[in-house]
């Protein structure tokens, strides 16, 4: 699904966010990306989504070489990826429902089909009753769930989540982890960056640790679902 081959990302100004990172993530895996802030977690996720391009090295996602991706092909590439942002990036000028409808709209879906799918996604994250609300009136946890609904509404094979549990209290964090696990069980590949080691321990899954832009630990995937202790 995802393959990094000696990937380096240097930002203008010389800061090297990632150095010579090589890794592989197979289809259907649930991977946690950990490390201190500034270790390069966000950069790695941005590289996977082709939001940034590597300075050197090769990245292959979904069988496509990111460096060779043409600008015109980018939108179609992104449609296969569900992105969940720490700051949600919700659109506050429209309803919860319309926020979830946007990805479908972009893909050319409309009418009752799209509405049905948007409601299904909202139902999955438990926000169906708030579909008419404005995102600004939602709590932090609800906003994060809305962001998740928007990421999964077009049924992507890959979901990338950047610090989805940051700023959330434990109960909300667990709720969200449960959702991720449910998606993983239906075959969605997930890459989740977090520094909540406690959660990782609880839910298992493979861990990739970065420090100062270098890969320090990449546990081979354990049989995540079977060995993970169930949450209390």
């Amino acid at each position, binding site marked *: 699904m995802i393959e990094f081959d000696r990937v380096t990302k240097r930002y*203008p100004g010389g800061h090297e966010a990632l150095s010579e990172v090589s890794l592989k993530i197979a289809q259907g895996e649930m991977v946690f990306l950990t490390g201190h802030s500034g270790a390069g977690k966000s950069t790695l996720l941005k590289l996977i*989504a082709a*939001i*940034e*391009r590597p300075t050197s090295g090769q990245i292959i996602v979904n069988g496509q070489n990111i460096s060779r991706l043409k600008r*015109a092909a980018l*939108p*179609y*590439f*992104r*449609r296969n990826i569900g*992105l969940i942002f720490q700051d949600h*990036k*919700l*659109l506050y*000028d429209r309803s919860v429902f319309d926020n979830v409808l*946007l*990805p479908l*709209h*972009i*893909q*050319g*879906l*409309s*009418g009752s089909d799209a509405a049905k799918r948007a409601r299904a996604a909202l139902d999955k994250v438990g926000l169906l009753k708030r579909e008419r609300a404005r995102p600004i009136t939602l709590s932090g946890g609800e906003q994060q769930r809305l962001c998740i609904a*928007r990421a999964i509404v*077009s049924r992507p094979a890959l979901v990338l989540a950047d610090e989805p549990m940051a700023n959330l209290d434990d109960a909300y964090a667990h709720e969200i982890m449960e959702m991720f696990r449910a998606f993983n069980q239906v075959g969605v590949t997930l890459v989740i960056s977090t520094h909540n080691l406690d959660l990782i321990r609880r839910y298992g899954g493979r861990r990739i640790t970065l420090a100062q832009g270098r890969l320090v630990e990449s546990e081979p995937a354990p049989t995540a679902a079977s060995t993970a202790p169930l949450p209390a």
Partner: protein
Amino acid sequence: MSAWVDHNLHSLRVALKRLTDTPLASLFTVLVIAVALSLPAGLYLLLANVQRLAGGVPTEAEISLFLKTGVGPEQGRKLAAQLATRPEVRSVRFIDRDEALAQLTAAGLGEVAASMPANPLPHTLVVIARDPAPASLERLRETLAALPEVERVNLDTDWARRLAALLELGRDLVALLAILLGLALAAITGNTIRLQIYAQRDEIEVARLIGATDRFIRRPFLYFGAIQGLAGGLAAWLLLALVALLLEDSVARLAASYGTTFRLTGLTGPESAALLGASTLLGLLGAYFAVGYTLRGLDTPR
């Protein structure tokens, strides 16, 4: 296909909503566009009316033939009758030299005439041509000048030529103004679109992250530009109609003082359509360039 139609309808709705969300700003932009458009359109109208007015004045060009001094009045009358049978001549009037002197005296120049030892005026024929076009007039003038009885020919088409040149100049001015103000219109639209894009930055960023194509993002802005242009064109049209209405009375009074009736004409159907079409197109064009330019600037750094 239906998705395409859906999205276009959606884009149209979005564009209309953006216009009506900031009614005051939209109103001012539309007004600016209207003024910019009504200047060349108004000048065009003025020109059209002047041309019509000029067309209404009898432009029967007179050619004056001054006969040689040896030619007597009998001979002159005969020549007049002869010339009147020519196909390119409408009518010929013979003016006897004594009659001309009497006219001059009546005009208050009698003293000058009286101081002369003899009547200095020749017999004159005034030929009115059938075709007032300059080229054929010129031809007729040459033919008449070649007659043995004729001393000198005077073709008074200078005023017609001057008017034609003036109208020509006016048309050039309209074209120039139209081009300049058309550019201004495109620039105004482009600028409002640019501000729009900055205001919609978040939405554009999110839409891009979840796979929106540039076309998807561009479309509402193009509709916005086109609608704004169309609204500006309509406002310009109304402005011109209003001006015509306001001027109607004074024009009628002016015409009455000359003993004629003259009504201002507004834009014809095709001209109105051209005005609206051009304003829409210019709005669209301005939007197109602004969107292309601004979106490239918003590109995430690589």
